[in-house]
């Protein structure tokens, strides 16, 4: 549905905002577009949605080139820009009716389409309110309703959960999953667990270049626990550290302010079993185990790993395999 080929973008200067990015999103897929802030996510999505022109490369939406047939391509897309800019002086239902008309929804269908979009995005209860008076969470969802209102086959959502509170984030994630049943979705985020929660596949970019793409399981694998954090009863951490160092799976043990950080050997396969054995050892030695938590790689660490890996062309090969 979405084909991006060798896309590059500069804003006049020598620095590339996006450099030579290629990926595809197939019909019915929910793809996460992942990268740290400033990686070029918004730029790429803006180009795909037709707001920005690319310096080089091609974008095809359902077979329509975004440059040669811009209107046909844009008709297929429901785009929600970052931070969902809206007109504060309009009421929610007025705004959505206007957007439906702008997107070419026929007069006879408009009412039904708007009602359905409001219901899906759960903004029906504020439909008579002025957009300027809505909370951030509601505004974000009005933006989502806007993307949905013409019932486009493709949704492009730029950081739909940014700036929301945890409850709202959960709602939006659930909504995206639900919408994924009827739409092809490309959703950007800088939060790794979010991609795992919403998407089938992820495309990862950093510093404007594509560093990896593949199924969610591969990403999960990168994020698997590299160690555990252990807190024991007071005064016994010395003994606990000595005990842990003797375990086969342990690479090293570091003492932090209130806890011990245990790193597993990199060759270790079953981290869960290793954690179990560590717990057993501590309990049987009578050291009061108070806390044990897996330490997962942060997004920065995963990106660091991906960037170095792609330089070694390891992930690039994997990416090619995934694209084919």
């Amino acid at each position, binding site marked *: 549905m979405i084909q991006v080929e060798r896309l590059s973008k500069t804003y006049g200067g020598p620095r590339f905002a996006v450099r030579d990015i290629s990926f595809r999103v197939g019909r019915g897929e929910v793809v996460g577009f992942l990268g740290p802030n400033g990686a070029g996510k918004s730029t790429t999505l803006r180009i795909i949605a037709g707001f920005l022109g690319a310096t080089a490369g091609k974008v095809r939406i359902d077979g329509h080139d975004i440059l040669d047939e811009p209107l046909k391509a844009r008709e297929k897309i429901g785009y929600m820009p970052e931070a969902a800019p809206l007109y504060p002086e309009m009421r929610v239902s007025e705004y959505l009716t206007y957007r439906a008309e*702008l997107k070419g929804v026929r007069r006879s269908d408009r009412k039904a389409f708007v009602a359905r979009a409001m219901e899906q995005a759960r903004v029906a209860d504020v439909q008579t309110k002025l957009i300027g008076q809505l909370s951030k969470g509601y505004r974000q969802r009005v933006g989502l309703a806007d993307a949905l209102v013409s019932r486009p086959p493709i949704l492009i959502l730029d950081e739909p959960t940014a700036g929301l509170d945890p409850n709202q984030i959960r709602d939006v994630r659930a909504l995206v999953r639900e919408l994924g049943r009827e739409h092809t979705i490309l959703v950007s985020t800088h939060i790794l667990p979010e991609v795992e929660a919403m998407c089938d596949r992820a495309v990862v970019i950093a510093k404007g270049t594509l560093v990896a793409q593949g199924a969610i399981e591969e990403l999960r694998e990168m994020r698997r626990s590299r160690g555990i954090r252990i807190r024991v009863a007071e005064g016994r951490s010395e003994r606990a550290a000595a005990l842990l160092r003797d375990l086969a799976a342990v690479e090293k043990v570091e003492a932090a302010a209130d806890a011990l950080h245990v790193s597993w050997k990199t060759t270790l396969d079953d981290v869960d079993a290793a954690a179990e054995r560590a717990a057993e050892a501590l309990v049987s030695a009578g050291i009061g185990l108070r806390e044990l938590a897996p330490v997962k790689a942060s997004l920065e660490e995963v990106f660091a790993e991906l960037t170095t890996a792609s330089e070694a062309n390891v992930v690039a090969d994997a990416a090619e395999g995934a694209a084919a």
Partner: protein
Amino acid sequence: MKGFFPVYKRELFSLFVTPTAWALIVVFLVIQGFHFYGLLLHFATSVEVTVDRGPVQAFFGESIIFYLPLVLLCPGITMRLFAEERRSGTIESLMTAPVTTTAIVLGKYFAALTTYAAMWAPTLLYVVVLRKSGAIDWQVVGTSYLGVMLIGGGYLAIGTLMSAMTQSQLVAIVLSALIILGLFVLGIGEFVFEPGILRDVSAHVSVWGQMSEFAKGIVDLRRLVFDGSLIAVPLYITVRAVDAWRWG
């Protein structure tokens, strides 16, 4: 022209639901009310009123109070058209909708033009008032309003272009007011410069000269062509400028 009507309607809605349009119309009508009142006092006490120098001709063709409000009020109508959309980011939703840039620009421009027409509409009452005390030359009224719409149309097109050049409404209104004032002052040159090319140019672009002709019922094709270009050229540049944002 897909998308012209929704853009037009939303822009009108926005002009009239935020107090912008109402505020401008009130200011305009207060000024023109005093203007008309002053003219009536003048004509009521003057002994001689010739056929082509009546109150209608004076109102449209001979008084500077006709132009001065337009220098600020026209940019006031157009200042938010694009500047506000760019500042708030809504331009992104607008330009990713399946509509052409021409439709967006024209939709916004005609909303401004409609507001401008609404601003002038109540002045038709003056004609009604005048009719009670004497005969009205309807052709003069017609050509006068034609002149009003053409000149305003040009000013609004300049304002639309300036609004597309900046994200700040203030910069937009100042720039367009300066350009409009510049055009007006250049027109005054007709009465200042010695005969020669400079004076011819001034006479050609003079809104003053144009309105005093239109207010006498004289419609010169050259004036129409000039007004037409004053509308078409800025609007064309606006379309190109808006399209160029994609490549920024």
